């Protein structure tokens, strides 16, 4: 950014959010160059507003200055969604983290977007209610980020993903105007479903400043069982058998041997390190029903080759099993310096075939690939393990990622089930969408954001045109060794 433009912008933003919460210092803004994906890029300025009104004022100033704007919440995004590849202003939501209202009589909560997902359920559980979507990152990711990515989680198999639990949004439109869309507390409203449209749009249409969500009664009991298998294929067959039996589990998760060993090294969840695969299955409901269903599932798992089935005896054991699953990604650090996570989806019946193909890719390429995934809905997270210090590995791993996503697409699936397209998968969009499909999406985007200033460089293919500021993990590693490259201005 030109120095004069940057100074003018900085002055104007300071007037809105104050000096303390307008960051321009190169040291301070470095913190905002990354999320949980490998790519990084520096913003020009960072603002940390305290209210929707401040957000709106910031957005308006950016409109007047023609400046790109990127929303950033928990920064747990795995697709580079918050990485400001065109520079400009990053809007951080760490101060907008309040529960505004808990309206139990109407089964709704109204929250600010920076509220950490788990904090909401923690606030409502004492009253017997919870917020259903539970991404494994729920201790750090926020409701606003979840809305922008339409986050899923282990328990969204039965109860639906974020969009099924959001009933209204307050938005700061790219012009700086604040509008409330959706029914909020009411069952429905008239007009097009703008709420449903904006959920999952990854910050490319508007900034979310307030969220109305459903609260759901906590089931009286939940039971989790772990079924242990000699290999991934037999575990996969058991999944199909459970689903085919008419039982509706609340969650069905699978982990393969590499994942199990990483998890055990990190979390000690009690998983057997010699197993080929484990399944976690959960059912919830009335105690009698839960008991019956658990027995039925145990029988099915055994019939399909489980060497052992363990039912969590109490809440502590249950939590331990889930701690293992939810800590799976971070546990990879125990067995590899770096990992690259994918988020493909295939029709459930195509899972065994896909897992075989991934195994073959691993053997051919020599990279270990761990599999941790939401087996119930065919959403796989292959984790390719590599070492970014080794020249060329990152580039090779990206190619493996493309190959796996292509397999998912060709099997009638999708290139992302919950992490979003972001920066990372924008070129892969062409695996599943035609020119016409993308043209309509861009038309819709431009109704909100005619200049494409909101989170530019994301979600849509750029056909190889590198955004101006991108630095992959290789850049980070280089930086760690002391050779930082300069940044390009956005103006």
């Amino acid at each position, binding site marked *: 950014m030109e120095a004069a433009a940057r100074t003018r912008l900085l002055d104007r933003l300071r007037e809105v959010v104050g000096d303390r919460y307008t960051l321009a210092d190169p040291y301070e803004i470095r913190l905002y160059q990354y999320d949980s994906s490998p790519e990084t890029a520096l913003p020009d300025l960072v603002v940390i507003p305290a209210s929707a009104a401040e957000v709106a004022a910031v957005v308006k100033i950016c409109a007047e200055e023609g400046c790109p704007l990127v929303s950033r919440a928990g920064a747990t995004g795995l697709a580079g969604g918050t990485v400001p590849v065109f520079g400009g202003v990053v809007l951080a939501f760490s101060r907008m983290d309040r529960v505004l209202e808990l309206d139990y009589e109407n089964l709704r909560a109204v929250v600010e977007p920076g509220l950490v997902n788990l904090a909401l359920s923690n606030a409502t559980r004492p009253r017997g209610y919870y917020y259903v979507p539970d991404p494994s990152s729920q201790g750090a990711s926020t409701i606003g980020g979840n809305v922008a990515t*339409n986050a899923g989680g282990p328990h969204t198999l039965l109860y639906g993903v974020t969009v099924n639990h959001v009933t209204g949004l307050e938005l700061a439109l790219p012009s700086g105007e604040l509008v409330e869309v959706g029914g909020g507390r009411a069952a429905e409203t008239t007009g097009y479903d703008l709420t*449903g449209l904006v959920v999952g749009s990854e910050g490319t249409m508007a900034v979310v400043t307030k969220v109305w969500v459903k609260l759901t009664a906590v089931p*009286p009991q939940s039971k989790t069982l772990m079924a242990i298998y000699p290999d991934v294929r037999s575990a996969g067959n058991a999944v199909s058998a459970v689903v*085919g039996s008419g039982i509706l589990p609340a969650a069905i998760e699978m982990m393969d041997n590499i994942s199990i060993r990483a998890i055990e090294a990190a979390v000690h969840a009690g998983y057997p390190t010699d197993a080929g695969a484990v399944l976690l299955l959960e059912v919830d409901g009335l105690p009698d029903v839960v008991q019956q269903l658990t027995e039925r599932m145990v029988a099915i798992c055994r019939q399909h080759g489980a060497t052992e089935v363990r039912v969590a005896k109490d809440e502590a054991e249950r939590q331990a099993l889930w701690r293992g699953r939810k800590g799976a990604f971070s546990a990879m650090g125990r067995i590899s310096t770096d990992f690259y996570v994918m988020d493909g*989806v295939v029709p459930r019946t195509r899972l065994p075939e896909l897992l075989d193909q991934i195994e073959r890719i691993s053997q051919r390429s020599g990279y270990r690939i761990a599999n941790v995934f939401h087996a119930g809905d065919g959403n796989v997270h292959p984790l390719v393990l590599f070492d970014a210090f080794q020249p060329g590995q990152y580039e090779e791993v990206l190619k493996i990622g493309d190959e796996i996503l292509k397999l998912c697409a060709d099997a009638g*699936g999708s290139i992302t089930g919950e992490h979003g397209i972001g920066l990372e998968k924008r070129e892969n969009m062409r695996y599943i969408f035609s020119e016409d499909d993308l043209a309509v999406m861009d038309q819709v985007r431009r109704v909100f954001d005619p200049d494409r200033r909101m989170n530019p460089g994301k979600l849509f293919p750029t056909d190889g045109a590198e955004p101006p500021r991108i630095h992959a993990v290789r850049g980070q590693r280089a930086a760690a060794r002391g050779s930082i490259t300069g940044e390009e201005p956005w103006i």
Partner: protein
Amino acid sequence: MKTEVGQRQDLAVDGLVPSTTMSPASVAAAAADLGRCYEEGLAVIPQGGRTQIGMGAVPHRYDVAFSTTGLSRLLEHEPADLTCRVEAGMRLGALQAVLHLHGQRLPLDPPHPEEATVGGLLAANTNGLGRGRHGTVRDWVIGVTVLYPVGNPARVARAGGKVVKNVAGYDLMKLHIGALGTLGVIAEVNFKVQTLPEASADMLAWFDTPAAALRCGHGLALGYLLPAAMAVLNREALGQCGVTAPRPWVLAARLEGYQAEVAAARDRVAAAAREAGGQVEEPAPMFWDAARGWPAAPAPAVVLRAATSLTGVPRLVDAIGTDASVMAQPGVGVVQVRPLPGMAEPVVNRLREALGPGGSVVVERAPAAEKASLDVWGPPPAGFALMRGLKASLDPRGVLNPGRFVGGI
């Protein structure tokens, strides 16, 4: 394919008749047909089973009756994946019949499933009484193929996909659900489906006052064993469903789930009803079929739908007074109303006054002559400028359903 129709009353919409009918038998043919409408600037009303064709404001123009019923194939159904892909003109009843063979269903229960097409189900966002537990149309659609009237042939574009979990690209399914065919013609729909519940049971509880029945329903909605469907009806509405009422109000509940769950739910509903002063019994077997069809009353009935919060329901029911038959869903926040002849206007006005901020009161059905004075959609909602922008961008010549939607869209 284009046919001149003369005066086809059976294709009328609010008394207007088209000059042409198109009934394409493939998506490619539909794109060609719609492309021609775009080129010639013809006003198109897409239609399937016509079960909700009375919805919306009186169209500004109507040249072409664009029937989707030639697009009626089931394209894919992989039972083990619990998904299916169908052409938009397929009748919901026909789809359900196939799913039932595999012990599955789409848990959406609109009026007239034998005639209603899946495309119409989406466009009109017709939700039956089961929405409290099973959600609405938007919760079951995982992909769409839509024809947009830009260029000749029309542009064919997809969104979503065939898998149950998918966040690639914008969720344009949401845009078309409830859009009443004003943004595009839905050509194909991908659904996720559900395993049929193991058991179900129906119950009625009679009450003397609406307050007691609604309070009981609200309490049940807040608890864990949420009935699949719940409706509070007054005596008039119940009579229209073929049941004679020993008391003026009834709470009807349908319970679904595993056997043990349904048994427990039945005890819970009965206990809650008795505690609220209700008298419990099993309904006549045909009751739910009649209740399903009730909101789709034949002309010249006026049917209203008000949406509010759960706690807003009693206020709306109060505002209606004795001038209408009423079916309220205390677990959802929807009140459907059939005003007595001549009473539509005062009832609409009272409902809109009682509504307060948020929510809506929509005239779902009314004779064309009454529509203008009733203000079918009420005031445009927040975000209306965006809605107009979407319409202008996706249907730049305004050929689709001109004037039928909110705010004159």
